[in-house]
């Protein structure tokens, strides 16, 4: 039995997303030329939710794109099996836009590094800001989030698991799981 610790429930996640939506609108002084880009898989779900929250606040829809960063990973030559590549679905021009990059957990920062490279290959955004549900620390690159749902101090032998109803067909929650000692 591995010890688990529930950090956020459905209601906490909903409130966190709503607060981030308010912060995004405040910091960008409205939603002009704002676009949300979620990193597959759970970042894309959160980007859709943020878009719905922003619509509730401002009454207008912010475009949402989905970014697949597989081809930009820095560990491709180290993994035994090529990870499955999925499509990037961004049907708007990102040049001169204010991009809010969305992901579920910010950890080493390597995913975000890959996402930045992938985005810049698609155009030249005016700004790129980062929104995450969880920041668990342990950065290996100089990257920080502009909007954070919750900071969770973790140790390296723990996993942070984000469950979202759209992608996992279970009720939303965030749990910290202690990895079993080998």
């Amino acid at each position: 039995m591995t010890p688990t610790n529930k950090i956020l429930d459905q209601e906490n996640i909903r409130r966190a997303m709503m607060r981030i939506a308010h912060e995004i609108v405040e910091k960008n002084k409205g939603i002009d030329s704002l676009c949300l880009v979620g990193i597959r898989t759970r970042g894309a779900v959160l980007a859709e939710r943020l878009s719905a929250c922003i619509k509730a606040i401002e009454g207008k829809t912010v475009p949402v794109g989905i970014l697949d960063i597989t081809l930009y990973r820095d560990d491709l030559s180290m993994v035994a099996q090529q990870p499955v590549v999925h499509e990037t679905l961004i049907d708007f021009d990102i040049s001169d836009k204010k991009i809010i990059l969305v992901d579920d957990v910010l950890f080493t920062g390597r995913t975000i590094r890959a996402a930045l490279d992938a985005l810049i290959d698609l155009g030249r955004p005016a700004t790129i800001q980062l929104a995450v549900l969880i920041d668990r620390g342990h950065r290996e690159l100089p990257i920080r989030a502009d909007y954070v749902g919750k900071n969770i101090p973790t140790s390296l032998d723990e996993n942070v698991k984000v469950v979202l109803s759209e992608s996992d067909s279970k009720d939303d929650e965030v749990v910290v799981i202690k990895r079993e000692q080998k």
Partner: protein
Amino acid sequence: MTEWKKRDLLDLQHLEKEEIELILETAKSFRQVSARDVKKVPALRGKTVALLFYEPSTRTRVSFELAAKRLSADVINIASNSSSSSKGESILDTALNLEAMNVDLIVVRHPSSGVPDVLSRHLKAAVINAGDGCREHPTQALLDIFTVKEKLGKIAGLNVTIVGDILHSRVARSNIWGFKKLGANVTVCGPATLMPRCVKDLGVEVSYDLESSMKKSDCLIVLRLQKERQQDSFLPSLREYAKLFGVSQSKLDKASQDLLIMHPGPTNRGVEIGADVADGCQSVILEQVTNGVAIRMAVLYLLLGTKGVN
């Protein structure tokens, strides 16, 4: 989805249905890379790919070269007439020398069937068959299947007809394996002199009447009449071949308006396909070429990611 475990891509005969589907699915994601302004991703940075072509080729060679370059791999081109093979070096020696220079993957085209298999047995580098003799041309069949799936939404249950010189066609053989594995019904059509013996053992229908086959088909793959392989008087004349087995507009008018017309290129206009058909609205010949780059990117990506062996 299944995982890719093979080190080489030698043929479709020995691929599982799931492996073919994985390549098709992966290719879908790669197609958009070629459609962007910045047509490059860093996935194969630092890898080296050698193209070893012992037969003339434009499309396939350029397609592989672009595919590798768009994945950020380095590419070297070796053509038989300008390399040491003109001094008598065997292809295996050439390949071993490439490997000694740490080439990660070798794409090979050769007039003799089985050459890619021989290379794969002796090399640690991955090998892709880009056409060996009359045997197989797996990436061509994969891009044909990909194109049909994009256009018609499925493969299973479709009626696919391949018309032309079946006897000498590696494209036909790979397509028969591929389409059959994914559940299509395949008919081969051509003059009896250009029909391999025992072709029915591959599980295909044989037809000698193009018009009636076209009426029953969802997709028609027109093969190039390989003039360089016709010295042994397989045909009375090119004109007779064009009349009986050339896909003309008048034959096309009698078939379904949704019949897809495909051709692996290069085309002999006026022989196996009419110019109006090749340029017509039912032709997807140039889309095949576009999809070819995506298929080859997918294959390079999957092969260079595995550290396993066959």
